[in-house]
């Protein structure tokens, strides 16, 4: 587990121009806020200490107010807020899709499901789940929709968050400056497993990304041995293929109810980030999905031990 989550997912360590723009705005407001907070707290505490009733009796001067003072503390905050508003509008433009920001962008469609992410690369006939591969240094233009309820795509280091709303496609841009894995998550409460709808963005050099994309476009390898052949038979014969697609398996899912499994072996995690993608974990997942992600829509098909072995061998392309 720890290997999967050893890095931060922080708004304060931006790794893209867009996250950085928002970070700047954050720090500006932060310091203004600090000055205000310190000023007010100091004033209140000073009053408590300095003007404490020490029991000498009598009334303090009964002042009722002062219009000049009132106007001052109305106008000064107003001016600060006008500045903040101007910065807000500027930053909004800078981090939103526009002809400028999306001129050379890579388009990826994101479909949110209860409780996993589907990523479709329109230019490459590639579909993956939960892990988004992107080339560094290039703007990624995401179009978000949802297959069911409202979700929200959020990878703090790469950019803003944006809701995935059924019937209301949204677009947003992200980018990564450096190769690496960036963590994110669904940020809009979406039901039982909202907690386990994690996102991993794998940023690669353009060459590595291109190689990855080419490999992803390939169908699943043909079974290399008898065990894998049995696994493929089970995948097609049991109901797996009614919910999952594996290109090259001979069956296509009528609808993407579950993640595309063509290149499952390529992924770091299973079930949108709950466990590392290892053969043992996969076996456990297939044997009893509910023990790993309670409430998930992946059914327990009561597979036998041999069936589990064969499916794992096939899915992980293991000898």
């Amino acid at each position, binding site marked *: 587990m720890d290997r999967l989550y050893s890095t931060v997912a*922080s708004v304060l360590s931006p790794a893209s121009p867009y996250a950085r723009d928002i970070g700047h705005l954050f720090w500006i407001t932060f310091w203004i806020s600090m000055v205000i907070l310190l000023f007010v707290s100091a004033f209140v505490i000073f009053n408590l200490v300095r*003007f404490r009733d020490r029991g000498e009796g009598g009334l303090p001067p009964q002042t*009722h107010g002062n219009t000049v003072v*009132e106007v001052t*503390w109305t106008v000064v905050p107003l001016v600060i807020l006008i500045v903040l*508003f101007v910065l*807000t509008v500027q930053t909004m433009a800078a981090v939103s899709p526009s002809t400028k920001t999306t001129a050379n962008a890579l388009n990826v469609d994101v479909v949110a499901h209860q409780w996993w992410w589907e990523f479709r690369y329109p230019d490459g006939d590639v579909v993956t789940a939960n892990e988004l591969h992107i080339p560094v240094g290039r703007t990624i233009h995401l179009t978000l929709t949802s297959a069911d309820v409202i979700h929200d795509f959020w990878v703090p280091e790469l950019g803003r968050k944006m809701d995935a*709303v059924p019937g209301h496609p949204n677009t947003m841009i992200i980018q990564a400056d450096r190769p690496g894995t960036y963590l994110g998550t669904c940020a809009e409460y979406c*039901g039982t497993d909202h907690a386990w709808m994690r996102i991993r963005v794998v940023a690669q050099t353009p060459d590595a990304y291109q190689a990855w994309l080419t490999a992803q476009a390939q169908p699943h390898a043909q079974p290399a041995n008898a065990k894998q052949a049995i696994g493929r038979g089970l995948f097609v014969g049991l109901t797996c293929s009614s919910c999952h697609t594996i290109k090259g398996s001979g069956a296509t899912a009528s609808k993407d109810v579950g993640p595309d499994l063509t290149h499952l072996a390529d992924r770091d995690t299973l079930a949108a980030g709950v466990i590392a993608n290892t053969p043992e974990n996969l076996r456990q997942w297939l044997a009893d999905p509910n023990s790993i992600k309670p409430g998930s829509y992946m059914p327990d098909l009561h597979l036998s031990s041999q069936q589990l072995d064969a499916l794992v061998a096939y899915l992980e392309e293991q000898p």
Partner: protein
Amino acid sequence: MSQESVSPHALPFPPLTRGWGWLAWLSTTDHKKIGILYMVTSLFFFGVGGIEALLIRIQLATPEAKVLTPQEYNAIFTMHGTTMIFLVVMPLFIGIANYLVPLMIGARDVAFPRLNALGFWVFLLGGIVIYLALFTGSLADAGWFSYAPLSEAAYSSRPGVDYWIVGLIEMGVGTIGAAVNLLATIVRYRAPGMTYRRMPLFVWMMMITSLIILYALTPLNAGLIMLLGDRLLHLHFFRANVSGGSAILWQHIFWFFGHPEVYIMALPAFGMMSEVVPVFSRKPIFGYTFVAGSGVAIGLLSFAVWVHHMFAVGLSTPMNAAFSAASMLIAVPTGVKIFNWSTTMFRGKLRLDTPLLFAAAFIIQFVIGGITGTMFAAVPLDWQLTDSYFVVAHFHYVLFGGSMFALWAGVYYWYPKITGRMLNERLGKWHFWLAVIGFNATFFVQHILGLVGMPRRVYTYPNLPGYEAMNMISTVGAFILAAAVVLFLWNLVVSFRRGKPAGDNPWDAWTLEWATNSPPPEHNFEKLPPVRSARPLFDLAHPEIADYLDTHSEAKA
């Protein structure tokens, strides 16, 4: 004071059991008793919501904990939010207002005593109904704002959400009744001489709050009926995949209520602050007109900012920008109040009793909640921070560090009026310090958790760097806060029987509620002092420097 020589045990208990014994409580139309019913109900639900909060914090204390199932956790956080908002903070304010507003304006009772009683009982019914769902084996679990389509039958098929909707409609009806009544009382029943410009500021804030309730809860109830229609009659107001349905429409309706709701829970707190701070500073409020006027500004603006809850939904840029501007604007009148309270303390003679301590903590904590609120008005910051733990920290600073602390200030201040006995100061100080430490320990780290990417409403989390330690601090803080709450409740109970007798005006305060007995007789007043300024009892005690003598610019008001 004459009571000083009386032994505590010689004092009669407040007339709780007159009439037909305890049954009298069921039929009462006395605004004071109804006020007490509201208060006791909300204190009960405060316990319920508090236990829910502790369960949440236990589950989140360590990563990947399995104390609660996801389904249980989701139901508990939904009920925690719903309970604290609709069954604790709102009715506590409404209850206190019910008790105090007629006294503060020198009235015998409220305008519509029976509507008042009806309002309470319908409200209570609603509160019971949302929990009755337990008997169906499901509680509402779509979150306190029940976003469609998650709250639609297709995704929440169990009846918990139906009970939640029906309960909320009932609470809405009850609350609207209470608001109509308060409004009519304030407009029609003020004592001779009490012009609007001499009205206590708590009454001012309750007047504005009542107006907000009328215009905010009515659309909520309409929306809830639409949602119920979707669920039970297969209508499609909010079902996104059916012709004409729109999930976003629900959000507009909900937040058109939901943001004013924040001020329904904040303005009465502002009112309490504006009573407590001057009395314990021994000075009139600084800038009465500005405090009242900024309340009006907040009331109006509160209806023009709802989209700031929806910046991440993907609305158009002009829409986002317009609501950003309005949301920033609302910080101005709020700031004015903060400055007025702190300046009221300046050059006063501060009596550091429990009410003032809570009031001072309110100012600082509310400023923290206020500045993070302004951050959310800056759209790109909202795009990063909304729906993270940062927003959880933000609204707890506003509603707990703010509203609840003001309520505590108010309770310590007015408890003697209501019961005739003082709350224990020593317990009060303990309560205060534990609350400040517990509250800030619980919620301050949540700002950082949000910044490092922890989303809200998750039943568990992977152990990213720092998550475990910060969540543990938050959980420990929650238990300290719970200890503070237990002390508070204990103080209410023991002081009721054994507290120091209060006398009519233990704080030497200036508004009319202190001109009658503690507790007040059923008809409220034997006789009223003349009202010639906002501080009639001050004028009475200090005729040589009375407020109406026109020695100060603001006093002319």
